[in-house]
């Protein structure tokens, strides 16, 4: 479906492969996820967001050129919990803990940055241990909070968790396959991984702010994401978060992944009573 839309868009958009290909540049390399051919494009500057990228002809993954090195994840974002208001990590952790429905949960959040949710998450009664993984230069706001363990990404290579949260991380990865696989491998066999990101839907790229963020390396599609997940033995479920409705974030999705079919059934059943995936509240 996305491939169809990509094809249609490429033929009709002003930023098409035929008229926006970087003339003279060598052909784009294969897709980093599925190895299919990619086509080079330059988004038409609109509100100063022009950017070159390649689009996979098979899985639809967009590789965004000229990305800056991922900055230390310290900036404030609307999704981050503050001292007064719970944020996305807490909403995800609370919902996931309830649907997993067991005590003693070992929980990991990847690079939560400026979120102050750490202590809130650590206090969820079903959660026994709460780790947050950081990269070089990260200064997590929750460091030092009661019950929050700050660990380097290398240190958790052999750790396994019941719940892994990676909010707005996928688009920052240096290597989309290995990086995503590393996140997935953090889950134990019945564990749940919750990813939040925008999923590219084949819309004209020019109009999508997500692709213009300089630190974003990738604009994932569900096809690309599912390929990596399947290779790691994971099932995938996708839900619309509450915040997407409140702020009209058309492509924002929460992705729930597990190797365990029973855990996936728990996720689906939980959405009998939830109209949207619980997320941070709109301001």
């Amino acid at each position, binding site marked *: 479906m996305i491939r169809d839309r990509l094809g249609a868009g490429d033929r009709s958009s002003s930023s098409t492969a035929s008229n926006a290909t970087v003339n003279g540049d060598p052909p784009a390399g294969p897709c980093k996820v599925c190895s299919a051919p990619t086509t080079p494009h330059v988004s038409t500057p609109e509100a100063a967001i022009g950017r070159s990228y390649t689009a996979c002809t098979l899985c639809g993954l967009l590789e965004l050129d000229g990305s800056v090195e991922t900055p230390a994840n310290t900036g404030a974002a609307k999704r981050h919990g503050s001292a007064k208001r719970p944020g996305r990590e807490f909403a995800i952790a609370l919902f996931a803990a309830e649907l997993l429905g067991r005590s003693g949960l070992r929980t990991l959040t990847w690079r939560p940055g400026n979120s102050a949710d750490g202590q809130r998450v650590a206090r969820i009664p079903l959660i026994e241990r709460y780790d947050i993984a950081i990269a070089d230069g990260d200064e997590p706001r929750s460091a030092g909070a009661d019950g929050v363990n700050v660990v380097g990404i290398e240190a958790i290579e052999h750790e396994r968790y019941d719940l892994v949260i990676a909010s707005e991380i996928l688009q920052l990865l240096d290597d989309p396959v290995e990086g995503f696989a590393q996140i997935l491998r953090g889950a134990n066999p019945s564990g749940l991984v919750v990813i939040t990101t925008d999923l590219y839907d*084949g819309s004209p790229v020019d109009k999508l702010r997500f692709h213009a963020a300089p630190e974003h390396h990738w604009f994932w599609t569900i096809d690309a994401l*599912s390929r990596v997940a399947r290779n790691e033995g994971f099932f995938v479920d996708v839900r619309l978060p509450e915040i997407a409705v409140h702020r009209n974030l058309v492509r924002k999705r929460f992705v729930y992944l597990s190797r365990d079919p029973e855990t996936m059934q728990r996720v689906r059943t939980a*959405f009998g*009573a939830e109209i949207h995936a619980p997320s941070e509240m709109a301001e």
Partner: protein
Amino acid sequence: MKPTTPAAEACIVCEGPTTFKTVTWHRNPDRRIFLNNCGVCGFVRVVDNPWNYAEKGFSDNSTSGPRVGTESRTGREFHMAMLGLDLLDIDNARVLILGAGLSRDWLHISRDDRVDSVTTSDLENFNQSPDFLELDQQGTREFDLVIACEVLEHLTNPRVDFVQIFSNLSSRGVFVASTNIYDFSPLERHWYPFIPGHVSYHSAGSLECLARASGLRVDFRVPLVATQRAGRRKRYVIFSGHDDAMSTAANWFATNWYAPSEIDNRR
């Protein structure tokens, strides 16, 4: 002597203990229902709330309003079928519409290129379907897609009735139902169990229990109409024996906010 209902009985879905309750509609103290609410799966059995459509007809808005397809306008069953066909991704699909009532959506569904045949089944052939299956003939033919729009809440014996419905499915078949899902919020504010004929108010847990008993998976998706007049508890419930169908549903909702319904007339 007037027959009485036992105050406490085992849940007719999961056999868990139930609580007998009298619930009064919050907007009218004269409207009350009696029910058994399961403490395990959450199923609500509404006691003594019958409505025989063959005898009493289709009078209220829920059985004759915008969700019911007409000759010139598609209804909810059509949109449920379009979603189901997307999930199946096959040609020559054999479609069964259960409890179609007055809906003429069989006509619109049969025009889709992916459809081989559309059969309907109900107490009677209310909608003049050219391919009608008597209710007691369920399980004698295989269907790739079974649709049941506002039917589950009418089933009086879910464990038997669901096995019968599932018996219509081909090996890779998908069953798409639409119903309200009880979410454990105060029942006096839920109009759904007060509607005559609604004897089974399912929770997600009770439907999961019924799916498991037949070796199926179940998914709950929000139709667009749930964000408007149908209310936030309306769901499409998708049953299948294959994780593939569940994955396809996940993919579908990666690029769509809500499932299509009668207020979505883009197609």
